[in-house]
């Protein structure tokens, strides 16, 4: 295995007195797609917040290209090439669809993704570019959230619960475009509660339970029993 693109090293995370993560170690290699699965409250979103800098940690607890980034602010982490599609879409409600996308690209990293390319990926957004982001359906909002993350031309993209709250048909169409996106040589982390969906696109899987990694393995080698045990702790 080559050197990891992103690693966490004994990552602990706290919200005040409450400890949400306990010694989490994960590795993501260049070009790899991994899934992080786990029940509600297992610490998946906390892990994403720690990686992106929304939650400050000790510098060496998160390394990116062998550089400690654990203590960087979120805007500094974004500049290194990590983008996130946050849980619940989290679009800017005062901004139009197009402005939401432009905000994603304003850190100015070079790469293939720009407005027109996002519009080619999601043509409906081009049609609705001038409307407020709140006027879109949930699925269209998710497209904006994905496009917004792509606009920064990240090397690593984190998808936090992309299927949460969306109709199955929308989820299916979003998972259909994922390979196109990731095919650009990007690495990706997919956080999911839907295990089957996660396994279908990810090469490796980490399962979390109560703030710890309870299982790690290649998607095609893990059995349902192993995953159930790691997921539910039974």
């Amino acid at each position, binding site marked *: 295995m080559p050197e990891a693109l992103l690693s966490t090293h004994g990552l602990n995370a706290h919200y005040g007195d409450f400890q949400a993560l306990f010694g989490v170690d994960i590795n993501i290699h260049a070009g790899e797609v991994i899934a992080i699965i786990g029940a509600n409250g297992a610490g998946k979103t906390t892990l994403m917040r720690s990686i992106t800098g929304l939650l400050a940690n000790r510098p060496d607890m998160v390394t990116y290209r062998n550089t400690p980034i654990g203590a960087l602010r*979120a*805007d500094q982490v974004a500049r290194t090439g990590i983008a996130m599609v946050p849980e619940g879409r989290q679009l800017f409600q*005062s901004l139009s669809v197009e402005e939401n996308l432009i905000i994603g690209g304003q850190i100015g990293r070079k790469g293939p993704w720009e407005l027109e390319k996002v519009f080619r990926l999601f043509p409906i957004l081009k049609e609705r570019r001038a409307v407020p982001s709140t006027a879109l359906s949930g699925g269209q909002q998710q497209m904006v959230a994905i496009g917004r993350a792509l606009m920064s031309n990240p090397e690593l993209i984190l998808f936090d619960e992309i299927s949460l709250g969306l109709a199955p048909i929308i989820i299916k169409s979003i998972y259909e475009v994922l390979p196109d996106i990731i095919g650009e040589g990007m690495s990706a982390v997919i956080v999911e509660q839907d295990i089957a969906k996660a396994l279908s696109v990810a090469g490796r899987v980490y399962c979390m339970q109560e703030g710890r990694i309870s299982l790690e393995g290649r998607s095609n080698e893990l059995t349902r029993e192993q995953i159930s045990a790691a997921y539910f702790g039974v």
Partner: protein
Amino acid sequence: MEWINAIVQGVLLGGLYALFAAGLSLIFGVMRLVNIAHGDFIVLAAFLALSTTSALGVNPLLTLVIVVPVMAVIGYVLQRGVLNQTLGDDILPPLLVTFGLSVIIQNGLLEIYSADPQKMNAGAIETASLALPGNLNVGVLPLVMFGVSVAVIAGLQWVFYRSALGRAFRAVSDKQDIAQLMGLNKAHVFGLAMALSLAVVGIAGVFLGIRTSFDPSIGPGRLIFGFEAVIIGGLGNLWGTMIGGIILGVSQNIGAQINPGWQLLAGHIAFLIVLAVKPRGLFPRID
């Protein structure tokens, strides 16, 4: 005829009130911060202009070139150094800190400039007037100031809704964490918002110092006018703030026309009436 004159003068005065209010409205919109020291910064800007004009011997209107950038720098440094530390879920700390700043500025100015009323003289333009049909006379200087106010509001409107800076303001205002994920450092964006706010305060201060006499104690009164203009117009709407300023100015002048002692009272009554009839202001934008 006196009444029409009172209304026209009130409209022109309203432009100045809109300038008082615009910066207040801007920072509330971006970071939900209510700057209690806003009026004192207006007075500080007026004294800065006074010192500049007496040191350089230039027309007070020219001091804008110095006062506006100096106020902007003060705004940025103040935000990064002090006010950012007070922002959070609790709205009380920024209120207390800016209240403290208000006391500090007033007493600082009192120490340096004494309590004597000051006024700046802008020369011949102060007495120049335009004769309008119907025996109306409108001062050139108030007219110029009104024009500048409209231009400032239009400029702020453009910045807020059409520029990259405004996009950043709106994004950070909507969702601070997510904006940070997009590479916007909210501490810096807030600093820029306060710089812009105090730049407008700089213009307001210079105009105030030319129009009327001022002393270190009048800041809180200007803050009230600014608040009233913002609330009358509706939160988050800059053109609404302009109209709020005009309503306030016109009410004050009509009050003064009835009885000189009623000037301020009439303004406050107009404010209370709007608050009673439309509690969210005439043209609210922020929900």
